[in-house]
């Protein structure tokens, strides 16, 4: 257990400022755990998105000490004990409030992606016939969790 220092952006797109927080951090905690603790104890209305807390949903994207990261997969022991951890939104996107951004552009793009059409000749009465070696590459792209970290450049 140790007290750790955090600076978190509070505000919207027009104006805002960094607020300083100090809180206890236990072994194994990730940055999202600390944000939740600050939220429960000191800043009930601190806005942050999250869902799965296991790196699967891509909701808790933010900049941690200037690097785009998932807060749920960023362990506190990646940082020095005396280091202040600064947390902001991904700067690519307009801020809605605190750590929450407007990512609606991605959903507009989503609509433009054409629907899949499988080749009718691949269809059998047991379903489509495709071999693992042929789907390997496609599956790689489908691992995308839409966290949008890659757009934060």
């Amino acid at each position: 257990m140790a007290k750790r220092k955090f600076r978190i952006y509070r505000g919207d797109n027009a104006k805002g400022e960094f607020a300083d927080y100090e809180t206890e951090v236990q072994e194994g905690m990730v940055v999202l755990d600390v944000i939740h603790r600050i939220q429960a104890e000191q800043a009930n209305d601190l806005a942050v998105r999250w869902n799965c807390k296991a790196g699967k949903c891509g909701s808790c994207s933010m900049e941690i000490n200037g690097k785009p990261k998932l807060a749920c997969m960023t362990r506190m022991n990646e940082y020095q004990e005396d280091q202040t951890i600064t947390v902001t939104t991904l700067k690519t996107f307009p801020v809605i409030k605190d750590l929450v951004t407007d990512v609606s552009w991605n959903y507009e793009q989503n609509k433009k992606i054409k629907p899949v059409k499988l080749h009718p000749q691949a269809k059998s009465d047991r379903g489509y016939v495709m071999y693992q070696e042929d789907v390997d590459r496609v599956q790689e792209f489908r691992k995308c969790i839409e966290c949008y970290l890659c757009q934060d450049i």
Partner: protein
Amino acid sequence: MLDISEIKTIEHDVLIVGAGGAGLSAAIEASSRGVSTGIVMKSMLGKAHTVMAEGGMAAALGNVDARDHWKIHFRDTMRGGKFLNVWRMAELHATIAPERVKLLEEWGAVFDRTKKGLINQRNFGGHRYPRLAHVGDRTGLEMIRTLQDHGIHQGIETYMECTALDLLTDENGAACGIVCMWRETGNFVIFRAKSIVFATGGGGRAWEVTSNSWEYTGDGYGMAYEAGADLMDLEFNQFHPTGMVWPLSVRGILVTESVRGEGGILLNNEGTRFMFNYVPDRFRAETADTKEEAARWLAGDPDARRPPELLTRDVVARAINEEVKAGRGSPHGGAFLNIATQRSAEDIKRKLPSMYHQFKVLAELDITKEPMEVGPTCHYFMGGIKVDADTTMSSVPGLFACGECAAGMHGANRLGGNSLSDLLVFGYLSGKNAAVYAQNMSSYAEVDPDQVTNIIRNTTSILNRESGANPYNLHAELESNMQANVGIIRTKSELESGIAQIEALKKEYETVKAKGASQFNPGWHEALALRNLLITSEAVARAALLREESRGAHTRADFPGEQKEWLQYNIVINKGNNGKMALKKVERFNPDPELVRIAESSIEDLEKEIVDERKGDV
């Protein structure tokens, strides 16, 4: 005074609440029938709980073992559910699941393949044959992305980060709309609809140790209850046997059953493979009794029986609990789950990539070299809104429910893999029936302004009052109460004390205060969700107290074993006329004798029957 004419109103023939696998399946089916379809969700599209599902979706495709058949899937489901399932729902599920899985492939899901190029299927607890269509250990992501992409091309209107607050009903008590709040602005919106589908998931956030995300606050149960709907089987809460136990901050995060499906074994701190000591009589004839036989099964010997690690979740969770209680647990109070000795590092990384990554990052542990520490975590509600099996309509006309928020399909215990297929099957049935219901209505019902005013007043008073209880603290107290008193093993005295604490929390909730403004205010959102979570918790605890037997996921230390008498009843809950929660024992329907015959026949007889049937087909 509130002027409701200033609140934006949106109309849809069918309105769906919740955008996980069930809600999206319902929306796709409804809109394909030409009705205007909207879907509201608390999160953004594609982030719902379904995205976390790992193992796969169960369907008797017979791609890996051709002996599989819907009858065997149905039998497995009934046995797993300890025969408390709504028979007709289990039948619909087993018969419809294969075609829905194939349709998902048609819509773009890229499943792992067999050598012959078909959808691959893996072994899972309680399933006789390899039956789970899967994509590594990220099947839920594949499912939600496929449904999301297919849905948006079909013209479904999506309303993201929009919290449903309460249902509106017409003068006959039928559902006719819902009041929601945009999380971003805190503004209200009224949806008018001819029919409404709840696909709101479960309520695992009532417990301290859970695999569930923040969204799982029993919203569907709370809103349906307030609108007068019947809830059923709330005492059956599945504790998944394998959640992470260390570090503390990740306690409860799911470790997929696929680890055991791919051969993972459970050990205590003496190195004993303890599951061999916990085989229930019902499953003894179909479970390996030696390590050698289990190893032969893993190597693909069709005559070998399944390893005991693949018993149903209720059995495995209780076994781990027992081992820990007896002092044979792992250092942080769980059991060891080892895949490293069973499979090559390459296999593990290919079949369980997200587990490998999850342990590497969160626990600094390499699962290809070391065992994981795991323990039970609250995972799933078998109970929920009581629905008609064929139409999925609740006891409130015009309100339909599907997926985890509906009751009946899984009985007293759900088999792994039966949830994703449930979403596909019952999402489809809900969408279809809600669309037909809407098409039979000539116009929208009038919205009662008093109902709207009440809902909004209840919501804003949390922000407006001067001071009051901190919603985060109330939630934490509820969690520790449910964990301690309404957990995996239950007793009368603990349940009574649990209920007393819930009553006290309900009182405190009347003064809950959210600080700050209405824009994207998590404290406010937390307080709103608590109303539903308290209703859910009370229903669970009261039903658990009433059911004096142990069946499936509901274990009473003071009433061990299944009681024949209790097989005749479901516990049905609704809001009584005095405003208090009313519970009643409701006698179950007599099942179709043919279904009883299938479920109760020996596996040998059933398999022989299927072989003969198939010969007849040729």
